Each structure stands twice: as C-alpha cells, then as structure tokens.
C-alpha cells in the first residue's frame, strides 16, 4: 500500500516540485496546504503517513503548525523543508518534534532518501 504524504508550502512552484518527486518515488499525495493553518487542518482531516512542511509560511509558520500537529498526534512524522540559512529554525523544528529536514534546493535523490528513512524508522 502506498504511503500518503501531505505537502505544505505556500509556493505553488515548490509544491509542484515536491509532488512530482514524491509521485515518481511511488508515494501518494494525500493533499496540499498553502499555510500553517491549512496544514494543521488537513493533517487532522487526512491523517497522512508523513508531512513535508515548509518552515516559513504565512498565517501560521511551519514550526507552529508542526507543534500543533505533534500535540495532536505525537507519532506524526513531519519533515521540514528549509532554505540555506535557516539552520536555527531547523534546530527549533527538530526540538519541536520534526523527524528530519531537507534543504532547498534539493535533489530528487535527497528527498526520496529522507522520506524513505523517516517512514521506515521507528523514531
């Protein structure tokens, strides 16, 4: 059974990129969110196996959304997408419960590797 992934990023361009890579890698797209608020709502509604979350988003930041999702579901697997230079935010996210992170610009290989690792691991 294919794993379902929720893609959260406020830039359509990024969402499209990530979705294409995921579909190619054999994953199913559970849904998309364009801001932190939607990310939390959709997580609760769709219950995906994994979430890719952009760190900086309007209305609610990726980190705030992450915190809410983890509070709602402590087993949630969230992977943060950051740009170069957001290292502090990445560490904040990890402390808040993010399982891993990918740095933009990313390669297909990199994305699939991280997603695979996170879905497989038990912690």
């Amino acid at each position, binding site marked *: 059974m294919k794993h379902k992934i929720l893609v959260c990023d406020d830039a359509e361009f990024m969402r499209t990129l990530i979705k294409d890579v995921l579909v190619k890698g054999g994953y199913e797209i559970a849904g998309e969110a*364009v801001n932190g608020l939607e990310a939390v709502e959709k997580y609760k509604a769709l219950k995906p196996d994994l979430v890719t979350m952009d760190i900086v988003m309007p209305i609610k930041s990726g980190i705030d959304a992450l915190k809410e999702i983890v509070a709602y579901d402590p087993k949630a697997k969230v992977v943060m997408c950051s740009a*170069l*230079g957001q290292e502090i935010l990445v560490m904040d996210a990890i402390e808040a419960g993010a399982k891993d992170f990918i740095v933009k610009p990313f390669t297909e290989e990199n994305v699939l590797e991280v997603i695979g690792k996170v879905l497989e691991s038990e912690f």
Partner: protein
Amino acid sequence: MSFDIEKYKRLFLTESKEHLENITKILDKSKLSLEEEEINTLFREAHSLKGMAAAMGYQHISDLAHSMENIMQEVRTGKQPFDEKVKDMLISSNDTLWKMVEEIEAGKKEEVVRRENEDDKKATKVLQVNQMPGEPLLLEISFAENVPSVFARAFLVYKNVESFGIINSSMPSIDDIKKGSLPENTLKIELIPSRPIDPLMTYLSKIREISSINCVAAKPQELKQSSQPYEEQKEQKTEDRLVLPQSVKVDIGFLDNFVNITGELLTIKSRIRETTQHIQDIEISNALNQMEILLKDMQEKVMRLRLMPLEMIFSRVPRWVRDISKKLNKKIDVEISGELIELDRAVVEALFDPMLHIIRNSVDHGIELPEERERLGKPPKGKIVVKAEKERENIVVTISDDGKGINADRVYEKAKKSGKFSEEFLQSLKTRQDKLYLVAYPGITTKEEVTDLSGRGVGLDVVKSTIESFGGSFSIDSVEGEGTSIKLTLPSSISIVNVLLFSLGEYLFGTPVDKIIRILKVKKDEIEKLGESSYALLYNDEHIPLYFLHDSFKISKAENKNEYSVILVPVKGVVTAVIVDEFKGHKEVYLRPLNPPLSFVPGFYSSTILGDGNPAVIIDIQGVKF
C-alpha cells in the same frame, strides 16, 4: 515587590535548612538499611523542599530535590533497593542542596550554581532509569565534508541518540552545536543506553551525511569537560577572594550603537549571501550560517538588554489618577497587574504619553461623579484597571474603567456629519467596535468642550498612530453606562519582523506576514468594478472590498492585466483585498525607524535595507488610506 521576596527568603532559608538537617541526620547513620519511617521521612523532606524552592523560583534546587524525591519514591514502592549507590547519591545530592541554599543565603544568584551541579542531576537521573543493561558507550560520529546545514544535521543526530538513553556528555555540547560549533566535523557522545541500540546504529548507518561511526564501551565520565570534584570547590569557597561587581552600568547611547551594529552586520551578511548565492559553495554557505547563528544570538542578547518593565509607566498611574480625580472631586480605585512584563525601552518610552492620555480621558470623561454613580446604582468609587498580559508574540495592555462609556451610534453620527468619511466606508462599519474605532480618527470627539485636562494635543488618533508605528494595534470597546476598555496590542520585540516583499511600480515594499490572511493571484474577471475607483473581489462566495495599493501612494498602475497579485488582510475587522504588482518572496528584516516626511504617510511605518542593498518601506496595510 523586592521587599516581599526578602521576607519570604528568610523563611525559605530557615525552613529549607531544617529539611536538609533532617535528611542529613538520617543519611549520616552508618547503617545501610533504613527503617520504613526513615525512608518516608526522606521522601517527605525532599518533597517539601521541592515545593518551597519552586514557589521561590529556585528552579535548580527544586529540580534536584525533585530527583531525590523520585528516588525515594522508587525505594518506598520497592522498585529500587536502598543500596550503597543510592545512599551515596543521596548524600552527594544533599550536600549539593546545602551548598545551593548557602549560596542563596550569601546572596549569590542561583544561576551561577548550576554548572557545578549538573553532574549530580545527571547521576540521579541515571539511577532512575533503573540501571538498564548496557554499559556506557562512546559514540564517535564524523560528518562528511561539505554537508549543507551540518549543525542542524548534527543536532538531529544528537536528538536521535538521546532517545536511546541518557547522554552523559558530548563533545561539542548540544549548546555549542546550536551555536554553530562542530570541531573537525565530529560529534562524540557518551551514551548510557536504556534499550538495545541496534535500531540506532542502523539508522545512523543510513545517514548519507555521516562518513564514519565508531562505537566503543566507555569508562564513565570519560568526556568530563570542566567540572571539579566537590572537595576542591568547597576549599575555594573558604578562601578570601576578590569579588568584583557582577554587573555594569551602560550608557543607553552605547547600547543603541550596539543594536545598530548588530543589525547592520545581519544586513551585510544577507548581502554576502545574496551575492554569492550563484556560486553555490557549501563552505561559504556554512560559514554564513555560522555567522548568522552567532549574530542572531548576539542580537537577541542585546535586545534583551533594552528591555524595561512596564512598571516604569504603570507605577505612575495611581498618582495620575489621584491628582486628576482630586481636582475633579471624583473617587477612583486603581488596579494594576502585569507590571513586571518587559518591553523594548523605545516602546515603553513611546507608551508614556498615550497611556497618560487614556488615563486622563478615563478620569475626566469616563468615571462619573460619586453622586451620579450612586444615582445610577454603581458603587460611588469608580474603578480603573490597567492590565498587561502576554499573548503569544504580543503584549496586550488593557486600560478599562467602569464609567459612563461611549455611545457607539453617537460617534457614528458625528463621523457621518463630519463629512470626512465616504458613504461606503461608513456602511462597512457593522459592529459596535467598528463604530467605536472612529474615535481614533482626528476631529471626532463627542465632548463639546475641550477641557483643560484632556482633549489637548494628544488625541486618541495620536495614540493609535503611535501604537501602530511599532507594529502594534489599538482597539476600543465600550458600553454606554457601563464603561470603556481600550486595548493596546504591542509586539514584544520590535526589531525583527517577517515581511512579505512586493513591488509597486519600480518601488519595493514589505508588509508583516503575520497580519496577512493569504496571498493569491486573481484573474481579471474575478474583479468587479463597483464605481469610479472601487472594486470588489468574489472570495469564498462573498464580495470583499478590493483596492489598488498603488492608488493610495499615487504610484501608476497597469490596468487591464490578465492576472493580479492580491494580498488579503483584515482592515478594521473586514477582510480586504489589496492589489500589488509582484510578490518578491518573504524575508525576516530588521526594522529601521522612518523619519519625516515619509513617516507621515498613512500606512508607512518602518523601513529596512534588504540583502541586495535596496531599501524597502514596510507598510502596515491597516494604516493605509484607501
């Protein structure tokens, strides 16, 4: 405030020493096994100590007492035998607690004590894990060269290792990793595993960024960094030492200089990053990351130096109220809370006049004379409540009174009569709060005469614009006959803001992201023209007002585009769409104050310099004149 702490401190010291004395008495006995009564006593004493210390804010004493209490709980319930090791642990913890209490007595701040006692807490924690099988391991993890965001990667690895047991120590420490330090790209961790580590090793081996992993059994305390055995520390204390003052006085100008320099450094770092972006060199990127981490740390610390408690203003309020109410023969009680909350000094300074004006208004126009109040069935003494609360990233200051309130409809009528507002705008004000908000416009006063005390110079409109100039907001609610409440929402840190950048013509602007509902592109046919220059947008089955931001600033706009970039923001409670030219991404920017004449433009509240050296004006859309 500080007087009270002193009184309780004496009590705390006396009582905590009693508890520690009782614990010492039991532990001093040379026998190894304890009576049930003695075990319970140890538990109780640790428990009481924990509570008292927590109440006084001595977190570390409380934590250590808590660890002791936990161990005693295990012993009490039979899960842990009271053996030599437990006894040694308790004796050592007790000694440490004594030291901590003595240091508080000597006036030494609690924080300083922490480093010296970290080992105790760690050791106590180890015991609580019930000595799972697995000797301590020394993990040596080396990261490959040129790993992007290598510190975050190391941080993640550290966290994952931590989930497998207790980390006794690591080189570099977690704090150092956060600060951007990873000497020789290697992370050494001393781990006491609480469960089998095979899954951990499998996980680590899959991480591409790790070039090598080494795992050997370690002798405990192998990575001890700087702590000394307790005997040595005890000796140091009894020697006569030169004690230098623990704080320095700094001139404000000097501090402001510091703030400016750090801000400039951050801007320059961004510029370096932007200009070297195309080179895509990981070394440069990592170096810049490190710089950013350090600069942000420095900036945060410097900004913290600028914090001042609201008490500076709040402490004046009772006097203001007393002086004015005496002149007017009114009787008023004042209630203050949240005065210890701190804000940047610039904000506190700027709040002074607005608060004075609001309080004056309350006393002068708000609270009725005692006879009037009695007639209305109100208590003869009026009440003014000044409250400050933290609300997520903001500090909310509320000033409320139980006076005669403001009639929202009368304000509305006055505004209508003044002819200053368009019919449309007036129609859009639906709720009582919407209408009351009109008092914050210049010239709208419902009091016929301007009294000597208020209504002079500083009007509510100035209050509103002052608050907004810091990215704060102003709101007012009132029920005629019951009272008025003014709420000032202030950002707790004023200098760094996440803004959405966009262009209008050839100019670059920004607006804070947290006020934006969403951004979107709309097609020409989704926009309806309602009149000369008024438009509406169909959004979520509702028509919402749409404006060209260009019009407010007299920047020429391109009409008849097929697609427009739109920002949705709430303006006075109404979701409003604002058209701009192009979105240019979002950035965290350092705000610079805007000087006249630009600062007079409605909606212009700050400026910033971007990484490429170009300036951008930061706009508060809610302040713009449409």
